[in-house]
């Protein structure tokens, strides 16, 4: 196709188009400003976490970290109202459980919807897609009443069990499997005498791995950051980490350096994950965008 315009015309075309995709100064300034604005609140969180509470009253505000982090940490973990350690442990348990089970169940169902033929597949898929449109908060009151009925209010399983698999996860796995796994691979495994589960385990799972990494990261982040539902269903003496943050806020006196230390500790694990897997997260979002 390119060979259609050899020699001169091609060079001229290059002249008109040259630099079309190079970032100009305006672009650079826009991006720089955005990155500064994006990163600054997180940086500020770390600054306040390493200083005493006086920091918020001083002008100009100090922009470099101080040396109070150790003292703030011991105040944070020693705080009797917030149960911060328990909150961290609870969130780690909840996020890990939900992530593992979402990966398992979503990949099973996604595989079935993408590659297996069964009666009612289209209708069930449609039902699932419709439910994805329904906002989560619609169900909070009745879900709470249900939890109260079966005695789960205040218990950690209340923030785990209802979320063990989501329609979003199933759909994502289905979309990925549809395009990444050739039908021939499944058929040859069948001829080979593999059971359906064996096919899932030895043929489908390895192919799904990149999509599962992204779904896993998203699910973990979401569960770790969940706020409303734990606030509704859990008790202050058995919180998740986000609930615990809310408990650090005193009624009469706001101890910013304490709250910011808590916020920093609660954010750090996800920040680490983001730094390590940023590339996968970005490509996951961008691939997902194209399929939507």
């Amino acid at each position, binding site marked *: 196709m390119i060979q259609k315009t050899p020699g001169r015309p091609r060079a001229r075309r290059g002249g008109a188009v040259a630099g079309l995709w190079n970032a100009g100064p305006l672009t650079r300034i*826009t991006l720089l400003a955005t990155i500064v604005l994006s990163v600054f609140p997180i940086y500020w969180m770390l600054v306040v976490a390493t200083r005493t509470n006086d920091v918020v009253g001083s002008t100009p505000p100090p922009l470099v970290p101080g040396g109070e982090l150790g003292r703030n940490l011991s105040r944070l973990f020693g705080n009797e109202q917030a149960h911060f350690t328990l909150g961290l442990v609870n969130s780690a348990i909840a996020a890990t459980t939900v992530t593992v089970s979402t990966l398992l169940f979503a990949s099973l169902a996604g595989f079935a919807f993408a590659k297996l033929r069964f009666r009612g597949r289209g209708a069930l898929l449609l039902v699932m897609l419709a439910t994805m449109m329904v906002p989560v908060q619609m169900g909070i009151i009745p879900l709470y*009443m249900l939890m109260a009925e079966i005695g789960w209010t205040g218990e950690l399983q209340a923030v785990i069990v209802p979320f063990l698999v989501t*329609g979003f996860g199933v759909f994502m796995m289905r979309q990925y499997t549809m395009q990444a796994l050739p039908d021939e691979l499944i058929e040859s495994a069948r001829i080979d005498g593999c059971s359906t589960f064996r096919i899932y385990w030895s043929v489908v799972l390895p192919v799904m791995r990149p999509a599962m990494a992204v779904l896993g990261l998203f699910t973990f982040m979401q569960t770790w950051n969940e706020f409303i539902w734990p606030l509704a269903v859990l008790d202050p003496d058995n919180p998740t980490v986000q609930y615990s943050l809310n408990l650090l*806020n005193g009624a009469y006196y706001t101890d910013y350096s304490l709250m910011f230390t808590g916020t920093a500790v609660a954010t750090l694990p996800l920040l680490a994950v983001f730094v390590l897997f940023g590339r996968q*997260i970005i490509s996951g979002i961008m691939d997902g965008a194209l399929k939507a």
Partner: protein
Amino acid sequence: MTVSIGSRAGARAVRPPGPPPPRRGARTVLARWDVKLSPYLFISPYFLLFFLFGLFPMGYTVWVALHDWELLGTREFVGLENFRLVLTDPQFWNAVRNTLGMFVIATVPQLLLALVLANALNQRMRARTLVRMGVLVPMVTSIAAVAIVFGQLFSRDFGMVNWVLGWFGVENLDWTARRWTSWLAISVMVDWRWTGYNALIYLAAMQSIPRDLYEAAAIDGASRARQFWSITLPMLRPTIIFTAIVSTIGGFQLFTEPLLFGNGDMAGGSLRQFQTVTMYMFENAFRRFDYGYASAVSWMIFMLILLGSLLNFVWLRRMGGTK
């Protein structure tokens, strides 16, 4: 692969006659059941959980909404009375107004900024992944964390926002006190967290636009701004509709930011100046323990979301159509 299939088939053929046939028969029956039942087995965990914790509660809300249903005490069937009360409840409509207001002043600039940002990210540059990560990093923070940090940045006496505004001669603002200032502060929190994410979605769509279009336009002498208006925007329309609908769903559920901005007060300020519909639902359920009324409110929110998404869709469609 093929080698293993061949060798197995060979092994089977060599097998002496006698016992194998019945076993093979049992096997094919099993295999048939396996093919028939496995799909249902695989999707059952999702549907089981969904019925127990999704559909059943949702249906139950309808039932509860038709009752005068309080935590302790009455549980009386009242028909559509709760819905009638919600529709004539000034506090509910105040919450609707606040939600809509914050939705507009958060979403419109957010999507516009995301477009500009995506256009910038689409240029050739060094350290591409690092730049994208820098834009996306707010997404990893929890809403609770965002609300705490921004609550401090927007605080009246020592907040950095007021300090910066002070350079321009603006008096210290009490951001929570007034309707407009509280809406603005809450919108900033929402936008800070989501603009980068939407920019990446737009970027993905922009990268699927054939580059020849731009090159042809450049040869014809179209400026960059012109290219953006005449090529990028029309090609992005489906994606823009998608993000607008997602933002509508998110916008009507706005809860944590305003709640923590008001120090955990579900009323959203002394004059309810930033109480959203979801906060109002929560207030009725978990402060007044009036489950029936709260359920009716939650169904109204659902209707509003449906209506909002529909309007968005139609409007953005038509806007593109007249071009």
